Every structure is written in structure tokens, then in C-alpha cells.
């Protein structure tokens, strides 16, 4: 038999002014199972809590109902009070008679009636409450960072700094990501390589950091604190441990006509290559699509010249398995290819380039050694047109609906650098709006306009037409002057939209994290939990979550690291006990619950059961991992047999509340 105590709070006059608290206590005292029903001035006060504690001890209570303010306010207070008196904290229910009763109703009679009904519902519910104990789950003290761009590097460095082992998985042969390809950075115009490469080296040298370059995540199992990840180390046909990065092989390789990805295909590399001089790890990689030895079995030059004996044509992909407590996603972004935009002539005019291609053209380590020349005829361009929002803020299917955020600033940077270095060059920028919210950003943009005389024109470029004389006709509208323009340009630079890396979606599936329709990872809360994914133990760093510039990326990377460190610091995680659980005897194993679980908390196993007819049967049944389940209850409704139920908000508890309210 239940022994329930009811405690009605006056909250000074907050409740007592409109609710007849004595009448509420009196009425609830007659409810089945209620052995004591009291009212008090301030139930949350020290002495109010003592009242509850003493009653629990004195009357040996099995459940407590507090009629007071919102449970969002003091549920924890009373749970703690109950626990200190020896009652399981989850045997406490709150009837919200302040925010949802006394404060909204003026008429004492009806407010009192409602308070009684709310109290009865809480009593009906507490009858069915079960003591719950928060479980614990151990934490593996190692983190995985997926992606080795500036975001991944920063996150890894911060985590390592805190003293935890951290692995970086990078799909390219070197870490560094997009930032390594960038020439200068806004708004300070300092050299990207100068600030990035020391960090890359730091990561490589840090004892706590292991870099798996040329590797991909193949499988993720487990849950917060206890992920098991399979990493595929792709065959690079070079023994990383032996290669010294001397580069002799790359010099001697006879296959010299491979488009160089690092320079955006603007020049060529060899079949065995090191992406760039400061690559980390500085290890050669053989491209099997071009290597004559791997393709035809004839050549072997690199193997002959390598004094370290590092070349290994027989190398295969290798799978390694590792356990992690936390995973940080830092898969970054890519600019879209503007080849769908026929009006910009990108696919057939070599002098129409994207901004990232321009970065390489201007970079000292780029194809032209830092001199800006037209790709077509290697002449100096005198008129350059920049087109903003190519594929960003787009309604059609060719582009992206969002603003890519970084283009306005890097275009201002490009324009300024060109005007600085080549004052004889006219620079036009066509824009929808110029967006410069950021520290020193607007000043930077204004410098481009005011000091460097860059022609900013609000308007759209309608058509880019290469002409027979090698010039490019740019037809555009000037919205402010309300006129059509034709600019006789030498080069056109497209500020293409950026999009998440293609590997992000399959990765999200493996991680059971969520993505928006643009394939950016979804944060757990857009305001309050911006670096966590909704899946516990998975954190988001950098542009995989949304377009970001470098300082924002680094800030978020450190924030994600802080969250991961917070998790790794713990020896075990306390789990919310209000989680779903499946009644195995009732479960059909149909997988409906698994499909709606946003956390991937539900798995299935084949188990042997003794059936009602005394036979034994192997049945597929669901089981919920309480460390992963967050207690939303989506599965409980997806389950047709009612096998899935939720602790603290069970079917029977909610129906008891419904019954109590309706009667």
C-alpha cells in the first residue's frame, strides 16, 4: 500500500492569494494512499524542506507530492530533500499550482478547484512512480578528431594540452586542410602558411597526438564514453616509418602530368608526391591512378632512388580499431564547382577562376610563383571582375540557400592585395550586399573601397562571354545607377559558395548525428549547445557545422575541445535514469523504435526465450542503452505493441494523470 505525503506551498501570497491552500491540502488528504497532507508558507525554504524530510521519516512515505511552483524551478530541490531523508528522489512529483494556476487565474473558487485537480493528477502519477537509480558508464580517456584542417588541429592541440590522448584522422596525405591553400588572411593580411604550419608541426610533435593521414573513418560503434572506431588507413605505397620526406622520388618520377590538387589543378605534380613543402607528415604518397609501376608493372624508379627503402608497391589498405571516449567532427568544407553556371563560362574559359584558384595563383608557392598571371596566356591582367554570391543565397537547385559568410571578406582581401601589388589593375566587385560583421571587418572593407579604389558595384553579373581577342565581356547591371554595364575584363573571379565535405553525410550516418538539409551537422541546441551534436559524446568543430572564417573556426574548435575535455575528465558518466526501456517479452523486434531514435540508443539482439507454450524460441528484441538514451519517448509511440516505455513518464503514469484530470 502506498503512503503518500502531500505538501501544499503558499509561496507567501503568490499561491495563497488565489488558491485556498488549506482547502487543497484538505481535499488531497482524502485521496487514496495519502497519509499526510500539509500546507506551509514556503515549502522550498530550509524549514519547508525539513517538513517534507521529517514527514518522509515519520510516516515512512513511499511517495511525495509537492504542490508548489513549476517543477522547472524546484523539482531538483525537493528531489534532493527526499534523497537526504532516504526516499528515492524519483518518487517525488510536483503539481504546478503557481505558474500554471494561481498566477493565471483570478477567481479563487476555480483556481482552488484546478489546484486540487492538478494535485490529484500528481497523486495519481506518484502512485505509479518507481524508484530510479542513475546508472554509470565508464569513459575511455582518448579522443578522436575527424578532419585535420585548422579546426581539427586546434581541437587536437587543446585536448592534448589537457593531457589526453587524441587521434586525428585526415583523408588527405597531409593535414592542414583549406587553410594551407590560402595565401593571406583577412583582416590582418598575414600569411596563412606562416600561422598554420607551426601548428601543424606542433600537432605532429605532440606526444599525445597521433595523426592518421590518408585515412578514413570506416565504422563507428558504441556510445558516449565508449566508442569503438574502425579507421581505414589507405595504402599510400610508401612506408611512413621509413620515408624521410627527402623528395628525391618526386624529382625522379617520370610521370609528371598529374593535375595538382593542392594548386587546384592549375599545374601538375608527379605520380609520387608530397602535396606541399610543409606537409605533415612529410611523407610521399604514390597515386595509384597514375603510377606506371602500379598500373603497368613497369618503372620502379622511385623505389630505386629511395635510399630509405620506403617504397612498397604491395602495400594494402589497413584497418585499425581504436576505442575513444569522445569524437570531434571537423570535416570542414569545400567550395562548390561553378560549372553548372553556364552564364559565368567557368567550364570553358580558363581566365574565369574561383576565389580559391585565385589564392593559388597569387601564392608564392603557387603555379606562377606568386606573380598574378592569366592562366590562359600567362599575361598580366589589367581588369579583374569579382562576382559575389556564386551559388550562395540561391533559390534554385544549382546553388545553396544560405550565405557562405566568408566570401565578402576574402574578396575584399583579394581586391586589396591586387590593387596593392598591381596598381595599374582595375578591380570591380559585383555584390548583392556586402556583409562585414566582425571585428575590424567593415574597416577592412572600407579600406578596399576608399584607399584602394576598388569599384564595388551593387548588382548582378548577367553574362560572362570570352571574346576572340582574349578579353572577357562581363555584362552586368548596376542596381544603384539602374544601368546595364559591359566591362572588358581580363579575368573573372567567382566567389563560389562553400558546402560541407562530401564525406560528412556517410559519417553522420555512422555517428547517428543529425544534419540539416544542406548536410551541415546539426548542433544540439542552436544557441546554448552550439558545439555539441545531439548525440552525446560527439562534438562539432569548424565549418562542418556551418560556414565560418578562421577565427570563428578556431574559437569553435577550442570550444569543442573544452567540451570533449569536460567529458574525458570524468571517470564515468552519470546517466539520466528517465530513459526508455523495452519489455523483451512484448517486443516484436520490428525496428520501428530504432528508426525514430535520434541518438542511436537502440540495438537488437537475438535472445532465447521460454515462450508461454513452454517452447523455447530465439527472438529479436530491442535493448536501450541507458547511457545514450536521452528520454524523449519517440520510440514509445513508434512501438505498436507497447513494449517500449519511458521511466518517469510511463504510459500508465500519463494515463493516470489523464484519468485524474478528466474525472
Amino acid at each position: 500500500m502506498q503512503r503518500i505525503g502531500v505538501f501544499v506551498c503558499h509561496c507567501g501570497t503568490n499561491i495563497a492569494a488565489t488558491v485556498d491552500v488549506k482547502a487543497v491540502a484538505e481535499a488531497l488528504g482524502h485521496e487514496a494512499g495519502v497519509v499526510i497532507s500539509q500546507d506551509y508558507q514556503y515549502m522550498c525554504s530550509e524549514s519547508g524542506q525539513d517538513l517534507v524530510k521529517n514527514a518522509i521519516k515519520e510516516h515512512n512515505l513511499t511517495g511525495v507530492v509537492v504542490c508548489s511552483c513549476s517543477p522547472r524551478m524546484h523539482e531538483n530541490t525537493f528531489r534532493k530533500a527526499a534523497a537526504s531523508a532516504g526516499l528515492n528522489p524519483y518518487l517525488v512529483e510536483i503539481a504546478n499550482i503557481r505558474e500554471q494556476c494561481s498566477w493565471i487565474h483570478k477567481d479563487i473558487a476555480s483556481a482552488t478547484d484546478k489546484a486540487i485537480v492538478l494535485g490529484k493528477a500528481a497523486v495519481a502519477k506518484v502512485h505509479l512512480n518507481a524508484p530510479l537509480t542513475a546508472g554509470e558508464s565508464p569513459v575511455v580517456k582518448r579522443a578522436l578528431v575527424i578532419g585535420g584542417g585548422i579546426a581539427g588541429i586546434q581541437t587536437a592541440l587543446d585536448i592534448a594540452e589537457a593531457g589526453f590522448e587524441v587521434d586525428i584522422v585526415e583523408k588527405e596525405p597531409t593535414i592542414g586542410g583549406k587553410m594551407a591553400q590560402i595565401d593571406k588572411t583577412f583582416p590582418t593580411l598575414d600569411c596563412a602558411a606562416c600561422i598554420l604550419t607551426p601548428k601543424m608541426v606542433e600537432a605532429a610533435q605532440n606526444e599525445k597526438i597521433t595523426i592518421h593521414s590518408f585515412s578514413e573513418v570506416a565504422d563507428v560503434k558504441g556510445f558516449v564514453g565508449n566508442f569503438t572506431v574502425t579507421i581505414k588507413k589507405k595504402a599510400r605505397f610508401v612506408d611512413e616509418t621509413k620515408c624521410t620526406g627527402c623528395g628525391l622520388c618526386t624529382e625522379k618520377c617520370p610521370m609528371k602530368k598529374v593535375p595538382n590538387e593542392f594548386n587546384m589543378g592549375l599545374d601538375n605534380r608527379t605520380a609520387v608526391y608530397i602535396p606541399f613543402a610543409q606537409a605533415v607528415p612529410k611523407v610521399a604518397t604514390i597515386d595509384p591512378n597514375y603510377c606506371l609501376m602500379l598500373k603497368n608493372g613497369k618503372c620502379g624508379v622511385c623505389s630505386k632512388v629511395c635510399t630509405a627503402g620506403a617504397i612498397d608497391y604491395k602495400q594494402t589498405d589497413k584497418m585499425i580499431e581504436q576505442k575513444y571516449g569522445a569524437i570531434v567532427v571537423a570535416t570542414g568544407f569545400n567550395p562548390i564547382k561553378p560549372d553548372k553556371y553556364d552564364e559565368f563560362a567557368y567550364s570553358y574559359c580558363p581566365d574565369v577562376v574561383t576565389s580559391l584558384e585565385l589564392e593559388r595563383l597569387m601564392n608564392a608557392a603557387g603555379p606562377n610563383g606568386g606573380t598574378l598571371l592569366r592562366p590562359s596566356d600567362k599575361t598580366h591582367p589589367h581588369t579583374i571582375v569579382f562576382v559575389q554570391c556564386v551559388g550562395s543565397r540561391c533559390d534554385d537547385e544549382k546553388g545553396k540557400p544560405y550565405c557562405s559568410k566568408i566570401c565578402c571578406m576574402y574578396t575584399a582581401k583579394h581586391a586589396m592585395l591586387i590593387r596593392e601589388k598591381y596598381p595599374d589593375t582595375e578591380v570591380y566587385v559585383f555584390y548583392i550586399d556586402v556583409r562585414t560583421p566582425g571585428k575590424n571587418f567593415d574597416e577592412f572593407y572600407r579600406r578596399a573601397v576608399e584607399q584602394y579604389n576598388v569599384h564595388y558595384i551593387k548588382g548582378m553579373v548577367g553574362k560572362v562571354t570570352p571574346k576572340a581577342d582574349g578579353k572577357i565581356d562581363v555584362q552586368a547591371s548596376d542596381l544603384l545607377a539602374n544601368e546595364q554595364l559591359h566591362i572588358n575584363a581580363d579575368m573573372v573571379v567567382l566567389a563560389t559558395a562553400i558546402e560541407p565535405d562530401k564525406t560528412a553525410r556517410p559519417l553522420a550516418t555512422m555517428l547517428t548525428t543529425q544534419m540539416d538539409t544542406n548536410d551541415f551537422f546539426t548542433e544540439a541546441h542552436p544557441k546554448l549547445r552550439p558545439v555539441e551534436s545531439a548525440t552525446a559524446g560527439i562534438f562539432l568543430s569548424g565549418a562542418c557545422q556551418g560556414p565560418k572564417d578562421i577565427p570563428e573556426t578556431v574559437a569553435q574548435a577550442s570550444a569543442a575541445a573544452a567540451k570533449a575535455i569536460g567529458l574525458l575528465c570524468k571517470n564515468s558518466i552519470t546517466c539520466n535514469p528517465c530513459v526508455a526501456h523495452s519489455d523483451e517479452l512484448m517486443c516484436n523486434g520490428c525496428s520501428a523504435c530504432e528508426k525514430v531514435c535520434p541518438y542511436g540508443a537502440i540495438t537488437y539482439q537475438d535472445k532465447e526465450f521460454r515462450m508461454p507454450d513452454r517452447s523455447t524460441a530465439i527472438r529479436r528484441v530491442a535493448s536501450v542503452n541507458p547511457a545514450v538514451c536521452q528520454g524523449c519517448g519517440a520510440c514509445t509511440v513508434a512501438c505498436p505493441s507497447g513494449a517500449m516505455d519511458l521511466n518517469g513518464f510511463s504510459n500508465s503514469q500519463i494515463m493516470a494523470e489523464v484519468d485524474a484530470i478528466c474525472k
Partner: protein
Amino acid sequence: MQVNENFEPVIVAFCCNWCSYAGADLSGTNRLNYPSNVKIIRVPCSCRVNPMFILRAFQKGADGVILCGCHPGDCHYTSGNYFTRRRITLLYSMLDFLGIERNRTRLEWVSAAEGAKFAAVMNQFVEDVKKLGPNRRLEDLRCRKQ
């Protein structure tokens, strides 16, 4: 339709803990008025509400049932309310198909900041149900209050 002035409908409101229940609290904090007919049941997420609960409420004497959750896209559990939206759309459509009055059921998205909206929604809903009169088409006669 004639409004029976003496008819006091029983209204059950299921509110998700993170948005709508907080929104309801906020309308209290702001001392915004809505009828005492509305009784709130707290659920972790709108997706916890089983159609069985809604039917059960009508069986036991409710005249209207309203379900409130976070705005789509704002779910604390990221996707719960999207499932809710499909389930409840289909359920309400089925109730409509069976000839149950449309205005007895409602789904509203109320955020934790929308105290005023919560009160407005409840005022409107109670008024709509009052216009319909007591639930007769989906009642259990055994539970009817004499």
C-alpha cells in the same frame, strides 16, 4: 452555433517539458490569463504523446485535447516534434474521417519564450470547444458526469 454559457469544458493540454511547458510557466510569470479549464500534463517531448492518451482523455470526459511542443526545428531532442507532426496529423485526420469535430483537437508549437502565445492559444481553444459543446461523439457513456 449557440454557446452554452454554463458549459465548462474539460481541456487536457499535453506540453513538452522544454518549450511549451516553459511557455506555459512564462504566461504564468507574466500573469497572462487563460481559463482554468485547461489542465496541463508535462511530457518530456511532444513525441511522447501516444494517440492512446488523446483517446483516453476523450473517453474519460475531456471535451478538448491540445498538444503543444517546440517549434519544428527547435526540438530539444532534435527530431521528436517532426515525428509528432506526422503522427498527430494522421490521427487528427482519422478522427475527422470518423466525423469527430475538428476543433476538439489541436496541435500548437509554443516556445519557451511565447508565454503570450500560450495564453492566446488556450483562450482560443477553450472558446472553440465551448462553441462545440460537450463531447458526445467520442465519449464513453459510462464516464459521463451526471
